[in-house]
């Protein structure tokens, strides 16, 4: 067969590339009995030595959840989830919150080393082996199933006044802050999965940056699901006080298992006057195998409130993992002149389904938002951008620009774009553009004529397609994200 005649003829699904983070860690676990009821919630709360108000808060969320139905509007399909067949608490068997890294179980440290996440306070992030003494340090909070196992660089951060700790610890050590802000952006009854999370969340990260402080290093949380039949329900709360700045990174992996695992996180961001939060995610949960067996259901509620004037929240995500992604990191632009940004790359292959996008709610005057979404579909996957831009009547002078591009690789996949634009102020200006295309044959040919393999050419073109998003990532993360894109699409073009 002449290659020139049918250059795309050999397009097929990703099957050759095994998921590289699919190992599991054999470690003695403490598991709550399967099922969800008020007693389990009391047990979680008791294990975490929580105050009474938080237990009541959880029980209220549970009551709300019981009255709700799973949402079905997203462009995804999955067999019914038996919420009573899951463990809602799983922890490595020792007291949560070790006092120092020396106390962390060596098996856990080894797990994170294997994942490329340094829990020794020396190196930089995930996957990139730094030369000795090179690169900026990154503080890491490592969450293993239901609990935080280690948080690094806490002393350095404390010197700057920055609080970075597991949220379970923040509940004990900084109750006023937690009580004031928890649920203030994503209320307990916001949606089905957020209600579930509010009832059973076990751990996650807490960040508080005091007024005027520029956080001296990148903060990072690394999520790992290990145990079988568990859900992970982490809760992240980040508060940037007046005039402060913080950049936060999130990474996720899980072992390769045949059954589906549920991940229903809630992330709340609060930016006060002149504060800035940059939140970056590289999501690489186990996506399931080529036939769609196994993989994580990633049903996540992420929302930021630009409460203060001139505040800014920027979401950047690279989504390559999970069997199903249901996720809309959003900005509520309350403060005048506040800014919301959403930069997203979502790659789906095999039987993956992604329904992701954002909501930009313009409330204050002269609020601005930018949305850049790049969807890449390959194999037999479905990739949907779903976004809402809403201009409220008082948002005079508001601006939105949305650019939404889809790239199809192969003819068995689907790419969908569902924007909702609602404007109630004449002085606002909203612009939306969307395109769908495939990699042009002349582009591929040109690259190959210059000596690139077809796969390298696809990588090059895909990276170019994603450039506007990747450049928003902190540098170390951007390198990892590029590698991840290459790995995810390996074998998509043969």
């Amino acid at each position, binding site marked *: 067969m002449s290659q020139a005649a049918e250059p795309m003829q050999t397009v097929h699904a990703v099957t050759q590339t095994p998921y590289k983070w699919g190992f599991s860690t054999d470690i003695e676990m403490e598991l709550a009995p399967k099922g969800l009821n008020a007693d389990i919630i009391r047990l979680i709360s008791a294990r975490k030595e929580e105050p009474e108000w938080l237990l009541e808060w959880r029980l209220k969320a549970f009551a709300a959840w019981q009255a709700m139905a799973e949402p079905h509007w997203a462009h995804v399909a999955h067999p019914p989830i038996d919420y009573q067949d899951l463990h809602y608490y799983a922890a490595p068997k020792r007291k949560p919150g070790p006092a120092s890294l020396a106390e962390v179980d060596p098996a856990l440290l080894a797990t994170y080393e294997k994942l490329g996440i340094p829990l020794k306070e020396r190196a930089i992030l995930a996957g990139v082996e730094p030369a000795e003494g090179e690169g900026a340090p990154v503080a890491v909070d490592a969450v293993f199933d239901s609990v935080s196992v280690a948080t690094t660089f806490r002393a350095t951060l404390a010197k700057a006044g920055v609080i970075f700790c597991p949220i379970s610890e923040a509940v004990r050590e900084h109750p006023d802050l937690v009580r004031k802000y928890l649920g203030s952006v994503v209320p307990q009854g916001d949606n089905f999965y957020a209600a579930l999370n509010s009832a059973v969340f076990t751990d996650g990260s807490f960040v508080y940056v005091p007024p005027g402080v520029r956080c001296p290093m990148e903060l990072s949380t690394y999520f790992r699901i290990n145990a079988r039949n568990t859900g992970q329900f982490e809760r992240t709360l980040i508060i940037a006080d007046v005039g402060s700045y913080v950049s936060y990174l999130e990474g996720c992996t899980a072992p390769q298992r045949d059954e589906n695992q549920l991940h229903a996180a809630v992330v709340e961001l609060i930016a006060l006057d002149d504060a800035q939060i940059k939140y970056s995610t590289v999501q690489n949960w186990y996506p399931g195998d080529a036939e769609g067996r196994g993989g994580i259901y990633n049903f996540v509620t992420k929302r930021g409130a630009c409460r203060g004037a001139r505040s800014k929240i920027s979401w950047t995500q690279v989504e390559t993992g999970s069997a199903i992604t249901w996720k809309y990191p959003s900005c509520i632009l309350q403060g005048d002149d506040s800014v919301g940004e959403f930069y997203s790359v979502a790659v789906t292959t095999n039987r993956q389904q992604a329904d992701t996008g954002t909501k930009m709610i313009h409330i204050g005057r002269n609020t601005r938002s930018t949305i850049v979404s790049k969807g890449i579909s390959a194999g037999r996957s479905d990739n949907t951008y779903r976004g809402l831009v809403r201009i409220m009547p008082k948002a005079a002078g508001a601006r939105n620009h949305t650019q939404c591009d889809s790239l199809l690789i192969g003819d068995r996949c689907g790419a969908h774009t569902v924007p909702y*634009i609602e404007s109630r102020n004449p002085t606002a200006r909203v612009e939306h*553009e969307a395109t769908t295309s495939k990699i042009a044959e002349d582009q591929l040919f040109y690259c190959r004529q210059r000596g690139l393999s077809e796969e390298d050419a696809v990588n090059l073109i895909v990276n170019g397609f994603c450039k506007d998003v990747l450049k928003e990532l902190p540098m170390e993360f951007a390198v990892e994200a590029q590698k991840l894109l290459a790995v995810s699409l390996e074998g998509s073009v043969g």
Partner: protein
Amino acid sequence: MNAVTQLQPAWLRDGAAAFVARYEGLRDRLPGDAAARDAGAAAFRARGLPGVRDEAWHYTSLRPLVETRFAEPLTPVADCAALMTRLPQIDAPRLVFVDGRFRDDLSVVPSGASVRVGGPAYGALAQPGREPLVALNTMLAEDGAAIEVAAGADAGTLLLASVGIGGSPDRPVAFHPRHALNLGDSARLTLIEVAIGEGAYLHNPVFEITVGAAATLTHLRLQDESRAAFHISTLYADVAQRGSYDSFALTLGARLARLEVHARLAGRGATAHLNAVQLLGGTQHGDFTTVVTHDAPSCISRQTVKNVLTGRARGVFQGKIEVARDAQKTDGYQMNQALLLSTEAEVDSKPQLEIYADDVKCSHGATVGELDAEQLFYLRSRGIAEADARAMLVRAFLADALDPIAHEAGRVVLESAVAQWWERQAA
């Protein structure tokens, strides 16, 4: 009562029940294909009326319609001479329906096409199971035109007019005409569809159109219903290979309007143009909803949709382009723009792409804003009064949708309707 309607609010269920009750009372007297009608009734019983939780009706609430209790049109021979003068003066044969019933005395039957009237013209395209208002129409339709243009014929221009006379304010009427048009291979027709009226009424027409291979249908539509009326229309167009469905719709009237179009490009190389302008003021609500399905390779679709909103009006555009697995080399484009001329107007826009083929060129764009202050100043600095400058810029805003109308007489009618609307706003 089934699971779908069970979850609906009581007022919506009651509204649907009132229509079902009318059907029960009338069923033995309604003309036409009883099997089709009963299937429509079954679908309507199952689905009821759509609420805003129904994704396709997210932005358009039927509450004002449901709160109106409709009666039968009492006198199908009502005098409507005054209204007839509002019909466009086009030298062409015409089919006139008054309160949904064909009026032989007001019509001039065309020579280039065959027309059958006297009962609903049920076709094969409508999906009462999917579209609740189509189920309603199927259940209660009394009349309609079945138009046939033979293969190879050029049927010239045909005017299809609906005149709503309505009842007294406490006795609004509802009518559900059901039309069909079959355009043979290589045939041509320009259909000018006009809906006008006075008083309160519900006009809920369904139109099923098939465009044969290499045939061309130009469809110009003017909805200038009474400001107290409800206008909910659904149109299905199936276009065979190299056929062309070229439409433009202008929405000016009704208190609550929805124009829904399902265009399916069924054969290789078919084309659809769905251009539309909605000019709305006061408390009007206008909804233009399209679904363009590319079911065959190498088809082209184009949509240019403009909303101009004043007062407290609300304009909605929902436009979906679906590209099926086999529809390679699809070329789909959609542009939706809205101009808000007052602080209380609202626009909602949902352009959608659903794509399953990889070798496609599909894009959409949407913009929302007000008149450009700099352009306004430039015009005024050249001596053009502010009101005229605004009119010019609004007309310029509509240019991409209006200018491509090739049918001269039709364009004149639509242009003057736009100009009159603007004059009414300015007054």
